[in-house]
């Protein structure tokens, strides 16, 4: 169970860091093909978070982990804070033998800006230096759909932008 928690937490952080890297490059992330990759990453990020929630529920059957995880997504900062406090106490209860899992879980649930979470996750999941490098990594992913979509996005990056964008670029670059 602890190993599964660890595996899913690392997967969450890997996908999250990949997504953050794509979003960082607005020119790349605005492309339709890259948007599909981002949407797929969002789904997979949510799925790994759901799995973490289910695993924690198995460890702590008496608590309503689903509701606590829902509160993590609340727009109300106070509610998010309470959920994190509760999960923190819960994670402490996992035991000393699982200290590294507790650290991972805190990084998953803590209320951090995306860039900061990615930065802290670097030593665990590697660095996603640029959107292009991220797409190259994802184009070798184990997940066939992610691999295909990332590969398609990469091939699109080598082609000129859509005609409207080219026209816009010309206007922007025209000397005053």
């Amino acid at each position: 169970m602890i190993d599964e928690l660890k595996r899913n937490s690392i997967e969450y952080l890997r996908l999250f860091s990949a997504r953050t890297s794509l979003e960082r490059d607005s020119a790349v992330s605005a492309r339709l093909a890259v948007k599909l990759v981002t949407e797929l990453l969002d789904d997979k990020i949510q799925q790994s978070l759901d799995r973490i929630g289910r695993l924690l529920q198995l460890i702590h059957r008496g608590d309503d982990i689903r509701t606590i995880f829902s509160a993590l997504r609340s727009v109300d900062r106070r509610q998010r804070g309470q959920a994190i406090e509760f999960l923190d106490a819960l994670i402490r209860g996992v035991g000393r033998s699982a200290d590294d899992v507790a650290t991972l879980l805190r990084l998953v649930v803590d209320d951090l800006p995306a860039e900061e979470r990615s930065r802290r996750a670097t030593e665990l999941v590697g660095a996603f230096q640029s959107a292009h490098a991220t797409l190259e990594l994802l184009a070798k992913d184990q997940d066939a759909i992610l691999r295909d979509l990332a590969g398609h996005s990469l091939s699109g990056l080598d082609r000129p932008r859509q005609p409207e964008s080219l026209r816009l670029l010309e206007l922007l670059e025209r000397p005053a």
Partner: protein
Amino acid sequence: MTVADGQRVKRELTLRSLFPTMPAAAHVRLIELLEDVELAAGELAFKEGDLPEHFLFLIEGRVALESAALQSVEFSGFAVVGVIDAILERPRPRACRALEASKALRIRSADWFDLLEDNAEVARAAVRNFASQLHGLWQTLAPRLPRRSEPPVAPVQSAWEIYDKILALRQATFLRRAGMQAIASLAAVAETEVLQPGEALFEVGNSGEDFFVVAGGQLELLHSSGLHFTHEVGDVVGGPAAFCNALPNYAALATVPSAVLRIPQQEFYDQAEEHGRLLRGTLAFLALELEALQAANATSP
């Protein structure tokens, strides 16, 4: 928690009335998740603005969903009350008040969705149940729905890669909340059918075992009653009829060069077991369509 034998039999009978096609194993699980509720006349089962954490299977009496701003909806006999808010994950727009002494079984919405996501047959029954209600209204009101006045003139490609299929399914209204994983999985099993003007997609008496999503062009849906409806890109051909086994009563033909993605229903429900958002998204689509048509029906002369 276990349920006493007498109560269990009563609940079993109630569930068989409400969900005749639900598998026995699902009944057994559902019985354990239900809680008895007795409402005195005037008592509220939930308030306006409450989160839809539960909904009710009404088994006796009469209740109404009420709000100062919206039209009231009454339920009596066996009925499912408050499930649409749970599907749409929105605060209650109406309170639920007992109009007379009433009995109901209450279930946590999360438990209900877990049950649906774990069992394709139950999921299918829930979708069919919603779609049947919607289909009745749709047959009456569909001709009044706004459609594009001119047929599309863009040529339709003949070769569809998986990427093209993903883009086409992403436009499908019933998949709007399904998520990219589910869409990509469906794209992997979808087959393309390219049609010339006047060519039939299916005739009356078809198997009704597939969903057809318009990926390009335009199709005309025809029913022996005289109903005809134009389907555009993003539509599932047949609308609610496709979700409640009513498609064999219809025919569909292309009015311009068109492309359609065919998804076997069994594949769809198998994917729904894998991807919870696919089922919830489909139910949300049906619930929104049902509400829109009910509203149109209530305001029409």
